[in-house]
């Protein structure tokens, strides 16, 4: 028996001291009070005016720090996402980490031909089946944009492909409020009603302000709709350091934080206590190629710092990892995915998305999802740290084995070795064994695994009744849209 013994049970990192967090928070408040933001949605503007913001010019508001403090006090520190079957598998709180894919890539690398082509409805379904089977994918986003559905309803069709092909919690995008409503109705049909869906959400909306400091009408409509229904919402800025945000990390963070906080204020004014997820896709503009870089170490650094802020605010955090600027699933993709996955896991972000992204979010790849899955498993082992129980210290075992002995067949080894990371695709054979098996490169094994899962895995289907309801909703949406040309390609 002993007292006062402290253990670091898991491994982690933080980028910002408590003072730095406080300083960034105050800087974001200063930004909102002095630069403010533009809001283009009438209901939100009314709410803000009633709450006492100063309007510099129509739609350009300065938000006082007191409104932010109130919103932070009301927003819940924990959001739980459920599977389609009602299991509360994703607990977005504290430093619990969960991983998933990204959304809306226009292109896919075809797993059969290697061709880079437009993402289709079938591809979304396949990607969802893949994620349904992968152990380390906790939630899903679509990975790709459904390019072969009529543009006006492509968001509903995209969601349909997700709903039918996985039970895991779904983070979805929608064109607008109407799209959101149809999607929520579809999800409710699969869950047994809107009350169940609201009480135990299995879906979460993804929406974005427009950096720097602009809240567009469509984005805010969706934000308020989510608040109204207590639908978990990620309202996430995408500050690009050097382009839409300052090039200095701290300045870039200030803009991202200010956008999150101003979104939160509007959201909480609409419905206090509604679930809100903080976060961002935060990185640099590459100053040679002008892309928003998804593979840059800065993405990992800034995301980890933003995660520290989410912890400071006691809000769930939406972060980014498992993605790359490479055009192929190659060494570059592996480097970039590994760095970001490990950093995101160590930082303790909660809802970590964008696994499977290549080409800086233009191309989705199922092999890249599988690669990320493997890296996540390894990262989780690192997070597990060094347990320090009596059995872990193993002094009696060491004495038993003695100098020059071995631990191979010891009971203790049998008990403990299974906690090691178990490589599935990572290869550790000796040269001869590896050459004999002929599975050569990691990229070959990734591709084979994708094909294997797609051939074998059958996700839990939705009920026939739900399917009918979903089809009715889609049919109604199709009629309402008519042949209106929204979107394209």
């Amino acid at each position, binding site marked *: 028996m002993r007292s006062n013994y402290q253990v670091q049970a898991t491994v982690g990192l933080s980028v910002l001291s408590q003072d730095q967090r406080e300083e960034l928070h105050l800087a974001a408040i200063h930004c909102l009070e002095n630069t403010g933001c533009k809001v283009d949605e009438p209901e939100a503007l009314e709410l803000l005016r009633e709450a006492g913001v100063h309007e510099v010019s129509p739609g350009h508001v300065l938000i006082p720090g007191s409104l932010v403090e109130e919103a932070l006090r009301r927003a819940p520190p924990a959001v739980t996402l459920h599977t389609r079957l009602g299991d509360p598998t994703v607990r977005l709180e504290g430093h619990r980490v969960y991983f998933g894919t990204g959304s*809306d890539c*226009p292109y896919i690398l075809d797993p059969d031909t290697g061709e880079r082509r437009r993402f289709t409805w079938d591809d979304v379904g396949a990607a969802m089946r893949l994620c349904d089977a992968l152990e380390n994918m906790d939630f899903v986003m679509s990975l790709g*944009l459904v390019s072969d559905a009529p*543009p006006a309803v*492509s968001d509903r069709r995209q969601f349909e492909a997700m709903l039918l092909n996985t039970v895991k919690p779904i983070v979805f995008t929608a*064109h*607008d409020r109407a799209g959101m409503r149809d999607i929520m109705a579809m999800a409710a049909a699969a869950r047994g009603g809107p009350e169940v869906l609201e009480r135990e959400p299995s879906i979460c909306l993804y929406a974005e302000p*427009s950096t720097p400091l*602009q809240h*567009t009408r*469509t984005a805010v409509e969706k934000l308020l709709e989510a608040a109204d229904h207590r639908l978990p919402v990620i309202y996430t800025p995408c500050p*690009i350091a*050097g*382009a*839409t945000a300052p090039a200095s990390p701290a300045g870039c963070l200030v803009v991202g934080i200010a956008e999150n906080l101003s979104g939160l204020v509007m959201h909480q004014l609409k419905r206090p206590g509604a679930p809100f997820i903080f976060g961002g896709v935060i990185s640099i*503009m590459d*100053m*040679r*190629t*002008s892309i928003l870089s998804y593979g840059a170490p800065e993405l990992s650094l800034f995301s980890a710092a933003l995660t520290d802020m989410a912890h400071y605010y006691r809000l769930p955090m939406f972060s980014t990892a498992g993605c790359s600027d490479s055009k192929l699933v190659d060494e570059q993709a592996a480097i970039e995915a590994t760095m970001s996955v490990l950093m995101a896991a160590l930082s303790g972000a909660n809802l970590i998305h964008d696994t499977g992204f290549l080409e800086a*979010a*233009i191309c989705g790849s199922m092999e890249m999802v599988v690669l990320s899955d493997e890296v996540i498993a390894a990262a989780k082992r690192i997070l597990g740290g060094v347990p320090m129980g009596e059995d872990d210290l193993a002094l009696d075992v060491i004495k038993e084995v003695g100098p020059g002995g071995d631990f191979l067949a010891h009971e203790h080894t049998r008990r403990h070795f299974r906690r090691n990371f178990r490589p599935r695709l990572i290869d550790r054979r000796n040269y001869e064994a590896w050459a004999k098996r002929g599975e050569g490169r990691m990229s070959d094994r990734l591709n084979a695994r994708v094909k294997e899962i797609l051939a074998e895995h059958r996700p839990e289907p939705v009920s026939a009744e739900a399917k009918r309801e979903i089809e009715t909703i889609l049919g109604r949406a199709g009629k309402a849209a008519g042949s209106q*040309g*929204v*979107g*394209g*390609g």
Partner: protein
Amino acid sequence: MFDSVALSAAVVAGDPDKVKAETASLLEAGVPPKDIIEQGLIPAMDVVGEKFQEGEVFIPDLLFSARAMSEALATLRPLLSEEETAASGRVVLGTVKGDVHDIGKKLVGMMLEGAGFEVTDLGTDVAPSAFVEAVKEKRPHIVGLSALLTTTMGQMKNTIDALVESGLRDDLKVMIGGAAVSEEYATQIGADAHGPDATVAVELARKFMAELGA
């Protein structure tokens, strides 16, 4: 021919004060404004462009040079004859209706100015009718349309259709850009080209000017 070394160095360094000073002294020495532009400023920007391709300078450096150059151009343009002015390429840019994303478009605009074009940026959320009005007013050689979102890229087609309806389409070239669009989409909607990034946009603009015989 005149000694453009100092002018060139100032452009490459992205120093607007030096560029203006050099420009002023060259004018004082009797060098025709047209020559200063064509034999001084534009070749200097070409040097910057090469250094950028080589990875010696980067986008912010490029933009400083472009801005220094366009400030000098602003002082020189009023001094050009009518015929000389008409020769410089005119571009109208805008982010289409419903979309507020503009960082790529801004980059294109700044680099086009650096290449000697006269650029009118209509901003964001620009309705097809506003593009039509701007084209009537400015008579540009080139219209550039930008959209980030798949939900707004359809407005590119609407804008091109509006230009067709107003009888303006045939006298100009249209290029499009943005993360969701492609060469394929450009062809589909009747645009002349797709620019995957700002440097290509400048190349396309130059190509268009040659095609238009301007």
